[in-house]
């Protein structure tokens, strides 16, 4: 766990950066209405990783139930090498 009595109290940011610092291939994330956090996460992964788009491009999230979406996400995580986060021990 983090050192809880760390006296870190930051105020950081609020600075405009040039557009060139941001990816220009993620317009599909603008003005999107999403039904659930799970849908949002899958849509974000598809936008961030072109290789997922190639493999899973035919997926219509609205037509899938939650267990199927979770299985889809597990496949994506495998492909990306993402391990599930654990809950830290107290």
């Amino acid at each position, binding site marked *: 766990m983090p050192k809880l009595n760390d*006296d870190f*109290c930051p105020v950081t*940011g609020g600075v405009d950066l040039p557009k060139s*610092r941001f990816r220009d291939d993620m317009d599909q994330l603008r003005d999107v209405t999403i039904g659930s956090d799970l849908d949002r996460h899958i*849509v974000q992964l598809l936008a961030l990783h072109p290789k997922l788009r190639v493999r899973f491009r035919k997926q219509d999230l609205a037509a899938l139930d939650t267990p199927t979406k979770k299985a889809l996400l597990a496949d994506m995580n495998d492909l*990306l090498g993402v*391990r599930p*986060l654990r809950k830290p021990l107290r």
Partner: protein
Amino acid sequence: MDELPSRIQLWDRRIGKQCDADLVALTRELAATKVDGLWWHLKGELLGRPRDEDDHHWVWRKLVGQYRNHLAWHFVACQTPDGEIQGAVGYRIDFRSSLVPGAGSVYVDRIAVAPRNRSWLVRAPLYGGVGEGLLLRSVCHSYILGLSGRVNLLSVPSERTRQFYERRRFTRLSKDDDGMVEYELGAEAAEGWLQQAGYL
């Protein structure tokens, strides 16, 4: 979402013990009522002038509203059981890594703890660990999005804040004319921090 931590531990300075706090989506209503409308109404003895704080002019409600339908943006708040917001972070997931050309990163657009928790501003700050918990949340999110935990940010020209980032192995990238320092938390350092925190 299940994949992301929804609870962190803070240090309650009043009783000298750890306590739980939730990480919640910062909505426009929360921002309006618990941040913009409340944060700067400070009680007790002050050690500095609130208007001198770098974020005194930030309007979180407006920011949250501006990006509410943009899936690249996230606004997260740290909420204690009494319903109060102890800090907030806004980040976006579409940044370009400087350390790894071609790779993506999360960019922390802004992060702030409630003024009542700032040890340089109030004589008796309430909670510690808020900023670190919110920053670590952005690292977690970067990790589960397949961005290897990479996080970029600009640090205000405060030696203490910069030391915090460098202790956590953020790589210093550049310094601008105003003294703002750009940092990136690389994949290896991010994984180390996530392991140390018990998430991996």
